């Protein structure tokens, strides 16, 4: 699944480790989601959306 995590992260000047810490997951998880290798579960997707204060569909794209 395509997503805008990398851009959103850059806008806030967060590293993958920073975002991982906010989410309570490992840095490798953030990397796997960001590169589209792993689609997060719904609870994790909601958590990501809340952290960036955006609706899920503005972060993830199912095209």
């Amino acid at each position, binding site marked *: 699944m395509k997503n805008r995590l990398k851009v959103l992260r850059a806008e806030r000047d967060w590293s993958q480790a920073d975002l991982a810490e906010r989410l309570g997951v*490992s840095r490798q*998880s953030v990397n796997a989601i960001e590169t589209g290798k792993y689609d997060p579960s719904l609870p994790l997707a909601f958590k990501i959306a809340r952290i960036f204060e955006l609706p899920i569909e503005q972060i993830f794209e199912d095209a």
Partner: protein
Amino acid sequence: MNSTSPAGRRYVGRMVPLMVAYVAAILGVTWLFDNRPPEGALRYALAVLPALPIIGVVWAVGLYLREETDEYVRMRLAETSLYATGATLAAASVWGFLEQFETVPHIPLYYAFVFYWAAFGVIQGLRKVLDR
């Protein structure tokens, strides 16, 4: 496996005493059977002793899988574990038939456990490289 997560630390905490118990059991039981071979039911009870910490390792891995809260780490571990299980079953079947038709020597069954973890390590390593 993520040894820095709380679940990972609990896993390490369970593994250390299991490993110590395994080494103690294997040394103790080997010495006993070499020097004062037990008889009757005791023979069975003592012979199976080194297998108990190994069963404990399986239990510890299962608990880690349940307790790890990082869903991606958990999924990867479950997948790698399935690949390693498949590799072990395949290798055991191949070796079993080779043995049956007397082309290779007999290997004790407990080596399946060793093979499983070797396969696990190789697969996990390969995936790390491929995921880069």
